[in-house]
């Protein structure tokens, strides 16, 4: 739609917090340095797993629809609550580093020069920090407007509209956590949001690379058109996985591995694979592979 009016909006900003107040919405983004040791200990105690190396425990993005009172949030504590704590089972998509078998073999072989010492049991958990977190309704009132599955084609996020370079009224991004998997790859959860003249669009992206083993992407997209009546919020969740080599093959320059550290390249490459390849993933049995669409109707 050409010549769309710019909705009234007011931006407030401090060193760590940015927010925008629109006619019907208030959106807040918090960006703080990584959690200190005391905060990490508290989080670790609560979650029962070792915290990612870079845990931004105070970061978040919150969407509030003032009339209905609906509040939807993406934050680090809740994201990490979805990381498997305990032995990984079918569907959890357990991963080991590429050289795990050789490592164990070299120590359990009867002629080993470096036999295993007396070890204590290792606390099992998903060290890749894979999380299928889609954000959450963060207040009591909001629970009256839950997300409900939909197959309605009208409930598709209009990518054509989002590809237009309309003016961005408010932009925010926040990193919830990042871990270098002990130099065996990278795991991160980044949330980005842009307010356009006609809509709010958010992308929460979990990206995982395990060197020589696999890639994963778990995307949650939130879309709301200001002209929807009653106000409708669309949530699309897509999970993708592929073997490391399948993505590496698609590099433009086989000598330059830098794109393998770029979440956009990874997600785009995973999306471009055939339905069959997508279904198979990297043969981990991870239940996150697939796509679903849900809507929340903020009818007051």
């Amino acid at each position, binding site marked *: 739609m050409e010549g769309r009016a710019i909705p009234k909006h007011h931006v407030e900003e401090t060193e760590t917090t940015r927010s925008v107040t629109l006619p019907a919405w208030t959106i807040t983004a918090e960006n703080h340095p990584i959690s200190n040791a005391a905060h*990490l200990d508290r989080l670790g105690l609560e979650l029962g797993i070792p915290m990612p190396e870079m845990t931004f425990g105070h970061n978040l993005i919150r969407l509030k629809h003032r009339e209905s009172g609906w509040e939807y949030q993406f934050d680090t504590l809740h994201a990490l609550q979805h990381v498997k704590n305990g032995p990984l089972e079918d569907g959890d998509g357990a991963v080991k580093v590429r050289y795990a078998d050789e490592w164990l073999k070299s120590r359990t072989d009867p002629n080993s020069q470096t036999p295993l010492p007396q070890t204590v049991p*290792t606390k099992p958990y998903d060290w890749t920090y894979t999380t299928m977190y889609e954000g959450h309704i963060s207040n009591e009132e909001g629970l009256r407007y839950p997300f409900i599955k939909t197959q309605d084609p009208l409930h598709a996020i209009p990518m054509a509209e989002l590809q237009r370079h309309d003016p961005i009224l408010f932009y925010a991004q926040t990193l919830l956590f990042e871990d270098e998997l002990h*130099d065996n790859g990278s795991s991160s959860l980044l949330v980005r949001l*842009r307010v356009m003249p006609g809509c709010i669009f958010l992308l929460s992206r979990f990206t995982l690379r395990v060197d020589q083993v696999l890639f994963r992407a778990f995307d949650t997209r939130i879309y709301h058109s200001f002209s929807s009546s009653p106000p409708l919020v669309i949530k699309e969740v897509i999970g993708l996985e592929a073997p490391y080599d399948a993505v590496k093959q698609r590099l433009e320059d086989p000598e330059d591995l830098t794109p393998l550290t770029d979440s956009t390249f990874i997600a785009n490459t995973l999306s471009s694979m055939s339905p069959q390849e997508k279904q198979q993933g990297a043969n981990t049995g991870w239940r996150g592979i697939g796509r679903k669409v849900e809507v929340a109707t903020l009818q007051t």
Partner: protein
Amino acid sequence: MREGNVVHISAPVTVVGDIHGQFYDLVEIFRIGGYAPSTNYLFLGDYVDRGLFSVETISLLTCLKLRHPNRIHLIRGNHESRAVTQTYGFYTECVRKYGSSSVWSYFTDMFDYLTLSVVIDDRIFCVHGGLSPSIHSIDQIKVVDRFREIPHEGPMADLVWSDPDAEKEDFAISPRGAGYTFGSQVVRKFLAINQMAHILRAHQLCMEGYSVLFDNHLSTVWSAPNYCYRCGNSASILEVRPGGQGQEIQEGDMYFNVFEAAPENERDGPGQQASLNAGGKLPEYFL
């Protein structure tokens, strides 16, 4: 090349942890810790990868080592490896700055010669990662063949890769399927057998710049402030004072000098790249 796998040095010496190509912060370290050779330095490894200036960082450290071989010591970190530098930035930076991979090749050849550990005043054991179940006495380190690419298994791998676990007493295998963590009894036994007072290592990010564990028997030194230009963490260098004696570290033996990122990073940092600085100052039409 002439150095053994365990190099013995004396205090005073300032110990530096991971730098990861953050060149301006290396210069900051010399500003606050004193310039070489007036100050003796011991670097615990991980000079390259992730930061924007791995080439400048390793070049300066190599020159200093050549010029003042007895005042500058460089230990090998897990990033001083061909495999790791191909994924984490050093290889790419070399090709970009020199047009080919030869410089990367020469540096990674040089890494094979870096020593594995240093002992200060016969009482402080310094290594990049941590302890190994195969190493009870430091004499066992001396017989390792270190002139090679870092292997995935064996004592050489453990010394550059393992981590302490304050919740445990013994060794444990990492949930990743390879690699060890070590606990309080392991540290106690190692110090007793080798008649030492403390273990100094790097390898793990510390928000406050350093961390002390196991009742002041092990410290982690982290020297890359605002790591990856987005963590907002502090960094530190550890000043070891001379005259320390006995099996316990006394107050005044060691001092953690904490510092923040150098101001030069603001004007010569990630800039237009997708850096995740506070407040998302770079709007993007992401899809």
